[in-house]
Structure formats: C-alpha cells, structure tokens
C-alpha cells in the first residue's frame, strides 16, 4: 500500500504556519504592552519628579527668602549704627541668635571706612559647636589674609542694589565650608554704598533640606547656580548609562534644581515583567508546537483509516456485483416455455446481502427456492453463495424434495462453525400437471393466489420444519399442493413483512396480502407475460411508500411464479385435492401432523377435533397397517364451503378401521377395556367415514360438514 508522500510536507507546512502566526501575534501583543507600560512609567516619573521639584523649590525658597530678609534686616541695623562700629559686632550676633537657620552673618565695609580700623573691616558672627555664649563666635575677620574686597560677593554687593545670591565658594574664614552667600548693600544717609551685608547659607544645609528629592532608588538631584557651579553636587554620571533629567529653576536665586533618574532603575520593573512575559510566551509557543505535532499524528492515523475504509468499500462493491451476477438474469417466459412467467428481485440492506433466490427449469419441471441467511453483510453473503450452489448441484440428481432439503441441511450443518442458519423454501412445480411439491425449512409460507374461482389470496399451508444448518440429519417433511393455470405463487423473505418505517412499525403480512390482492384483482389478463414483473413493482412501491425515508434494516427479496394458461395446452390434472402431506411411519411425526392441520386454517372451533381425528386415524394406520415396517402415509385435505374432506392413504396391510366395533361408554371404569377409544373418537367427531381398498392401498375418507 502506497503512503501518500505529499501528506507529510503539507502537514509540516500548515503546522509551521500556525506556529508562526501565533508567535507573531503573541510578540506583537507583548511589544504593544511593553511600550504602553514604558510610556506610562515615564509619565509617572515625570509627574513625580515635577511634583518633587516644586516642593523642593518651595522649601528652598522658604530658606532663601528668610535669609534675604535677614540680610535686609542686618543692613538696616548697620545703617542705623553707622557711626558706631562696635555696634556691628552686636548686630551680627543678634541676628544669629534670632535666626536659627543662618550659619554666619557678616558686614563688610568699603576700604578705610573706619579709619581707626584701617583698610579692612568685616565683622562676622558664625556658629560654633560649643555651648552657651561661645556658641556664636563674633570677630573681625577682615585683613590681608582675608581680603574680602576682591571677592566676587563683595564686588556684586557693592554694585547690585538688591539681594544677590552669589556663586558658591569656600568660606575659609567664616563658616569654613562651601557656602553660598546672600549680599545686600548698606547705604549711608547719602545713599552711597558703604558696606555689604553677607549672609551665608551652608551648602551642607541645602543638601540636608533636599532629602526628599530622591524620588527613586539610585536617582539623585543636583542644584546648580545660574552660572553652572555646583551647589549640591551630583555624583558622577556613568558614561553609557541613560538618564532622565528634570529641571526646575528657582527664581530668587537663579539656581537650577535637577532630578536625575537612571533609566534602567526607572524601567527595572518593566524589564522584569518583560522577561517574565517573554518566558511565558516561549512556554506557550512550546505548548503550541507540541499540540500541533500531536494533532498532526492524529490526522495521519485518521487518513490511514480513511484510505483503508475506502479500499474496503471498493471491495464490497465488487463483491456485490459478483453476488448480483449469481442471480438468474433472464426470467421466463422462455422461448420453449411460454406458460411460465417469473420475476424476482433482491434489495440487500448493505453492500452485500444474505437473501437468495434461484430457479431453473428441467424436463418440464420448475425448481425454485427462496432463502434468508441469518445476519447480513459479508458473512451472510458467503453462506448464501454456498447454499445456492448446493441447491443447484444437489437438485441435479435428487428428485425427492424432502431428501434434497435434508442433503442441503446436512452439508451446511457440517461446516457450520459460526452457527449461521438459513431459512429456505424449495419448490418443484410440474409444468404439465400443476402439481407442486415443496418443502419448507423455517421460511415464511408463500402466498398462493388462485384465479380459477374468483381471486383467492391465501398463505400456502406450510409446515415450518427447522431452518437449514441447525441440526444435521434432521428429517424434513415435504408437502404437496396442486395449482391451476392462472395461479400465482408469491415468495418473499421477512425483509418485506418486517420492513420498518420511521415509527418502527412493520409493514406486516396483512398489508402484503392486501397489495397482492389489489394487484391480482386488477390483473384480468391471465396470459399477460409482463404481469409478474409488474406485480413485484407494485409490491415494491407499496412497501417503499410505507417505509418512507427510514433506513432499510434487512435484505428484501421477492419472487413471483405464474403458471400461465396457454392456447390449446391440455392440462393433465387430477380432480384437485388441494393440500397434502406425506408422513413416515413414526409416532414422532404426530406433532408435525398437528402443525400441518394448523396450517390448513380451518375454522378454529374445529381445529382440535380435526387434529384429534387425524391423529387417531394415523396412529391406527401406523399400528395396524405398518406393524413392522417402514412406510408412508399420505394425508390429503380438501376444503370447500360445505365440508372438509380428509383422505388417508397408506400401502400397508389391509386394515379397515370402520370394521371395529364402537366402544361402550356406559361401562364402568373397571369394566372399560383399554383399547377402542381411537376409532370411537373418530366416529364421534367426523360426520362420514368410508374405507376402501384399492391397488394395494388402504384409502380412508373422513368428511366433516361445516
């Protein structure tokens, strides 16, 4: 079996595309999410930084404004006490005592303003770490070592007529740290600037204030003066690291506060999230790959099963054709046999079926059979084929219909491992006399349509017997009937009577008989050779109309045999006695006799008594006519509207049951003889009994009037 190689690449390709698309979608989603989060974080950082900056600015302003006011206040005090240089000492000291946040305060005079002090005169108070009086250290610091005249702050203070914050510098004399000073001019009454007030703000203190500018871990801030000198230092930025910077300017002093946030700190969480999402995505993809691979394997299994199924269906199709070919193709009338018209069909429920029919004509005799193998499908069809070939081969040499059935049964029973059985009806119709010998093996009784006296549609009296294949060596009881020209035999399998519609109702025997009756009454031309086929078509239409859309549950078979009248043909028929049975000289056949009487469909009230009368008669024949030997008893029955007639014929020793005296029923129990009851009963039951001996046969006739 060739595997389709194009399957594999197709499978791989489609699986590959699925994974690719899924990965692309996932990656796209992740990227979008990443950038949105990033933007959100950035915005958050901006908002926080700006808020903090503003707060810082306010805080710083608080301090700077306080210092500016202090500077102005000191200048004012100095201006009032210009004539008293000693007062300068006190002023600066007082200022420091009053305002806690000032590190040092000084008043620096222009050269030689106080001649007694010489060129430099700068009074300064600053804080020490000592306690009490010595907490504030007040002194004059101007001198050649501290030439304040050349400092920037002094220069600015002289020229600028308002508070001025100078650039940071190291105050070696006063606070001895990096400071930033606020200067303010001191003017004499003439408005000339005579001194500069200088109040220092230690940068340490500033860095202290701005603690909350650390908004993120590892983020830092810087405060720079307007010229870019560092007031609060920023640690060295690492080259290559990316930073976000936020600025705010402090109006009063012209300083710039910046918050500097390393980007990797800012986006640290985002990066972590991104990593987790990526891992999850890869796991998801791995799972997808696994699923696609497994699905691919399942698809492969499915496709293999599919191609196997198709191959099987193909072979079943061939088997069906073979089976259909086994059926006879052409139906009578044949050229040399114009008085026989037949038609048959089989509708199998599956591709191959277990129903069969067969027929052939030989020496003016028609051999035919209809059968139904238990089950359906391939096993049934095999048994069907076997049965059919046995029928053909055995009927070539076997003329006794009961023996024929027995041989087929023995053959099938021997090889019956699967316990399959076949119901079979075999018939042999003498096309010269209309005598029908038949033997039933568990099959449905055929329908006999008699046309010689109106249209009578009835089941052919049939003993069931056992189906073929159940008991090897079983002895089949044959039967005989006589038909007239124009009569029809309708054979079928239970696929017809048990055909179900959607409501699980069965078509049934009644409907079948009705349909046959309808057709036959309408069919007036008894010589019509097309009638057989049309009869089957009519039945098929009727059952299909009943079944509707429901699925066919069993093989459906029909076979019609019509014995046509022909111009000038003389029929060598005897006076018809409709039904007969041949029994062996065996007490065990008595139940079979009961079945046969049952099948005659005599009025129910008489069934038991007729049965009893026949049983008693036949038993006597077996006892007295065939005391020691095997023999056969022929029982014929004829029914008219007025009476039923039974004729019992045997070829045993002469025996006249009517000669026996009747039993005396008035005797008591002790006096009653054991024998004699049988004949007594027959006499009681039947209206007329007559005996004759003819050609070595005992012939007893029993008549019961209806």
């Amino acid at each position, binding site marked *: 079996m060739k595997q389709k190689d194009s399957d594999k690449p197709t499978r791989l390709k489609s699986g590959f595309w699925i994974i690719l698309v899924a990965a692309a979608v996932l990656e796209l989603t992740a990227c979008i999410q990443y950038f949105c989060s990033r933007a959100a974080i950035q915005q958050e950082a901006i908002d926080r930084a700006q808020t903090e900056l503003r707060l810082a600015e306010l805080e710083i302003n608080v301090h700077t404004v306080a210092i500016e006011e202090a500077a102005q206040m000191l200048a004012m005090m100095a201006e009032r006490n210009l004539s008293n240089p000693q007062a300068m000492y006190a002023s600066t000291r007082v200022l420091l005592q009053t305002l806690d946040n000032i590190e040092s305060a000084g008043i620096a005079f222009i050269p030689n303003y106080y001649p007694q002090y010489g060129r430099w005169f700068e009074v300064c108070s600053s804080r020490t770490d000592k306690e009490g009086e010595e907490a504030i250290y007040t002194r004059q610091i101007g001198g050649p070592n501290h030439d304040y005249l050349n400092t920037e702050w002094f220069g600015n203070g002289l020229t600028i007529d308002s508070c001025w914050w100078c650039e940071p510098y190291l105050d070696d004399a006063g606070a001895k740290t990096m400071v930033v000073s606020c200067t303010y001019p001191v003017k004499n009454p003439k408005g000339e600037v005579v001194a500069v007030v200088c109040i220092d703000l230690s940068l340490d203190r500033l860095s202290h204030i701005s603690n909350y500018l650390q908004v993120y871990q590892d983020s830092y801030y810087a405060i720079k003066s307007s010229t870019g000198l560092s007031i609060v230092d920023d640690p060295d930025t690492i080259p290559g690291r990316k930073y976000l910077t936020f600025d705010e300017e402090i109006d009063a002093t012209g300083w710039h506060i910046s918050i500097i946030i390393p980007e990797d700190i800012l986006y640290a969480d985002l990066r972590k999230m991104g990593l987790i999402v990526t891992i999850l995505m890869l796991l998801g993809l791995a799972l997808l790959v696994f699923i696609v691979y497994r699905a691919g394997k399942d698809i492969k299994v499915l496709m293999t099963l599919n191609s196997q199924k198709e191959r099987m269906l193909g072979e079943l199709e061939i088997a069906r054709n073979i089976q259909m070919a086994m059926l006879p193709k052409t139906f009578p009338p044949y050229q040399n046999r114009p008085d026989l018209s037949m038609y048959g069909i089989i509708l199998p429920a599956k591709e191959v079926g277990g129903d069969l029919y067969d027929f052939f004509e030989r020496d003016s005799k028609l051999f035919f059979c209809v059968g139904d193998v238990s089950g359906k499908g391939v096993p049934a069809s095999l048994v069907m084929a076997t049965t059919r070939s046995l029928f053909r081969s055995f009927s070539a040499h076997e003329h006794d219909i009961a023996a024929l059935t027995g041989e087929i049964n023995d053959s099938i029973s021997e090889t019956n491992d699967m316990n399959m059985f076949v119901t079979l009806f075999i018939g042999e119709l003498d096309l010269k006399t209309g005598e029908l010998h038949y033997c039933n093996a568990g099959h449905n009784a055929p329908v006999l349509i008699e046309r010689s006296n109106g249209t009578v549609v009835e089941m052919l009296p049939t003993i069931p017997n056992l189906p073929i294949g159940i008991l090897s060596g079983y002895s089949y009881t044959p039967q005989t009937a006589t038909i007239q020209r124009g009569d029809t035999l309708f054979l079928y399998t239970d696929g017809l009577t048990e055909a179900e519609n959607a409501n699980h109702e069965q078509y049934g025997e009644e409907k079948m008989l009705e349909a046959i009756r309808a057709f036959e009454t309408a069919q007036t031309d008894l010589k019509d050779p097309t009638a057989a086929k049309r009869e089957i078509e009519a039945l098929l239409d009727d059952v299909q109309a009943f079944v509707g859309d429901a699925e066919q549950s069993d093989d459906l078979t029909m076979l019609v045999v019509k014995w046509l009248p022909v111009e000038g043909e003389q029929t060598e028929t005897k006076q018809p006695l409709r039904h007969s049975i041949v029994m062996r000289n065996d007490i065990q056949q008595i*139940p079979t006799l009961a079945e046969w009487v049952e099948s005659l469909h005599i009025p129910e009230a008489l069934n*038991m008594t007729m049965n009893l009368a026949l049983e008693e008669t036949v*038993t006597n024949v077996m006892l007295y006519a065939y005391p020691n030997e095997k023999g056969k008893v022929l029982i014929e029955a004829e029914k008219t509207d007025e009476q039923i007639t039974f004729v019992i014929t045997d070829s045993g020793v002469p025996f006249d049951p009517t000669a026996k005296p009747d039993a005396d*029923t008035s005797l*008591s*129990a002790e006096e009653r003889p*054991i*024998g004699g*009851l049988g004949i007594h009963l027959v006499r*009681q039951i039947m209206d007329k009994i007559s005996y004759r001996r003819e050609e070595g046969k005992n012939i007893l006739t029993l008549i019961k009037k209806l």
Partner: protein
Amino acid sequence: MTTTIQENGNQLIALFNGRLDTAAAIPTAEAVKPLLDAANCEIVLDCSQLEYISSSGLRIFLSIRKEAAAHGSKVIVRNINADIRQVFMMTGFISLFEIQ
C-alpha cells in the same frame, strides 16, 4: 409435554403440562408409574396446563383410575379446559372420574 408429581400429605398431585398426544404418551406413561402403586391416598390429576389429549392419553388416565380402585385410592381430575372436556364427553370419561 412434561409431567411432575408432588406429594402433599396424603395427596399425590400430577401436573400435566402441554399436549398429551400419541407421541407424548410414551414418556408420560413412564412418569406416572408412581401413581399406579400408590395406596390409600388421593390422586389429583391437575390438567390446568393440559392443552390437548388423545386416546393414548385417555388410556393413561384410565389405567390410573383402575389401579387406584384396586389400591383403595381416590382419583380426582382437576381444571380441564373446554377441549379436554369435549373429549371426555365424547368418550364417556366424564362420568368415570370426579371432575373438579
């Protein structure tokens, strides 16, 4: 056709089930042998499941009846259906037995 015999104190009850025709008469005759030897008891022939009887079956009933009389036992025939009754009528057996 099956025949079963039950003992119930002084009663022997024979149950016939099926069709007592000529073929069935042979095994049934075997089955009722215990009844033929029973002395001084009441023999009940329960025919409620008996569908059919022919002369061979009647013979069996008659022999039971004769033997019972000889052994001092009583025979009762119980629950015969319409068909059996008709046969009993035709043969006069209706007066040979106590029918219940």
